[in-house]
């Protein structure tokens, strides 16, 4: 009974967000096109710098072990887009609620943080997975890589990505706490989005980074998700090896949700004491 009630609350948040989303049709259309543009940018940069698609492919092969750099980047940007959205969505949702004045109303109801998070993020996962994967399929069809996606490897890659959702959800709660505290999410969001592109190997393998940056890169679940999904799909190198990579992801899957929940509870209590929980 209790679980059913919790699921009803989660679904209510998901459904309300989905309804609001569908009431902005322009937003809906653009979210399918966006992943294609994110990928085309570095592709044309590579072609421009190397002189031709072939030269770019050859240069890329030396670092990554594959000449299919367009597909490589497509996979990277798709997973990056999903990860960033999951990390930030809960915080952004809380911020939107603060701005709209509805956060206090939600916090007046007997709904727990876990239900709020799951409801908010279920919407994000659904929308970003749908738009990103449809975008990936459209782009792969245009560039002739659809074969990579119609395979059992694609399912395995998807499972790795989904496993990475657990630590990302924990990070999401942590950033939600941060947003409640600092009240201004945009500067941090812009920094982290750009930093993740740089550090997580979205458009290049992390082996091109300086050694210290490679170690920092592995601290982010998205780095492992991206590298391992590519490794499965394109038969190139994993970060360490499949077992170690999965073990690292699993350890993050334990650490981040606990850390996020502790930080959120602390921040919530602190703000309830300060009286600024609904302020922005």
């Amino acid at each position, binding site marked *: 009974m209790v679980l059913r009630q919790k699921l009803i609350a989660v679904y209510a948040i998901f459904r309300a967000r989905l*309804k609001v989303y569908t009431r902005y049709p322009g937003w809906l259309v653009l979210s399918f096109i966006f992943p294609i543009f994110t990928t085309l940018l570095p592709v044309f940069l590579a072609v421009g710098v190397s002189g031709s698609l072939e030269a770019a492919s050859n240069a890329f092969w030396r670092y990554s072990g594959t000449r299919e750099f367009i597909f490589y980047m497509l996979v990277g940007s798709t997973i990056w887009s999903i990860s960033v959205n999951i990390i930030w969505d809960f915080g952004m949702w809380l911020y939107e609620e603060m701005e709209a004045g509805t956060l206090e109303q939600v916090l007046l109801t007997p709904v727990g943080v876990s239900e709020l998070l799951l409801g908010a993020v279920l919407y994000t996962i659904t929308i970003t997975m749908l738009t990103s994967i449809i975008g990936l399929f459209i782009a792969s069809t245009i560039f002739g890589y659809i074969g990579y996606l119609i395979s059992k490897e694609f399912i395995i890659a998807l499972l790795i990505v989904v496993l990475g959702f657990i630590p990302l959800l924990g990070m999401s709660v942590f950033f939600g706490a941060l947003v409640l505290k600092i009240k201004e999410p945009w500067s941090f969001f812009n920094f982290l989005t750009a930093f993740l592109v740089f550090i997580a190997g979205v458009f290049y393998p992390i082996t091109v980074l300086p050694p210290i940056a490679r170690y920092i890169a592995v601290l982010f679940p998205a780095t492992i998700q991206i590298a391992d999904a590519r490794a499965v799909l394109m038969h190139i190198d994993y970060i360490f090896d499949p077992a170690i990579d999965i073990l690292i992801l699993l350890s993050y899957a334990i650490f981040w949700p606990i850390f996020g929940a502790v930080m959120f509870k602390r921040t919530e209590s602190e703000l309830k004491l300060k*009286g600024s929980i609904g302020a922005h």
Partner: protein
Amino acid sequence: MAEIIKAENIVKKYETKLPAGLFRRKKKIVHALKGVSLSVNEGEIFGLLGPNGAGKTTLIKILTTLLLPDSGKAYVLGYDVIKQPNEVKKRIGVMLMGERALYWKLTGRENLEFFGALYKVPPAILRDRIEYVIDFLGLQDFVDRLVETYSSGQRVLLAFAKALINDAPLLFLDEPTVALDPRRSVEIRRKIRELREEGKTIFLTTHIMQEAEELCDRVAIIDEGKIVAMGTPDGLKSALRGRSAVEVDLLTENVEAIVGQINAIGGVHRTAWSIVQSERGRAIRIRAICDSPREILPRIVEILLNNGAKIYYIKPEEPTLEDVFLHYTGKLL
């Protein structure tokens, strides 16, 4: 009669930071509540009366678990608001001030469905409850439109409906009629009385004396974070037994001098002024509590004329809660 709300010595301070340069901030401590104690009985309409900034919303936020007090204890329906916030939340309906409490891109009905689900009302019961609330508050004409198309009054009605969605035995209403026109205010007050007749306990804040007098079984007067008086409206007014009030609406530039001179008349106990919107536009309202208006009135008129004031009206009145407030705080609301 069972105590539904019990607050004991609640203290709340806020630290605000004021800009004092590019990076420097000056800290300022605001004492919002200075040891508030009160209790509300089952089935009554309890009004917390006070001017803006008196601490009404802070207290309502503590009682509804949105804020933690710095010290003191509070129990709602027997549950500790600090230690058992979820038990409290399940059993209360809350209408906080403002129309921003709603999702503007959803319809009224979708808002009610959303909040009903967050209150974990079982779906079958929720459907019936939504229909009941729509009917009870007469929302039929607009409930299926997006909230962004609503008038201010319609949004307040929907916020009120939201507070009723979980059929809680205890309702907190923060300034429920503040944004409403007189007709809708009367309607809301009638609905509040009906809810009391259904057996609900209602805790409402207001700065409208007439509303408190008309609705509340008991009121607490709060000023500068302290409860200065508590009791039934008649009981509170009995503190002024044998006294009357004189009200004057006027235009003057010497209000402080006039008030000082009226206060100096023998038999005048308290005098205060405020700016009001009268039928003739903005005016200054002076209210004096005195023993005998028959003797005092000519002397007040004399003072006003000597100071060159333009008098709109002057009249003696029976003491109201406004005078009780003036009696205890020396101010008008």
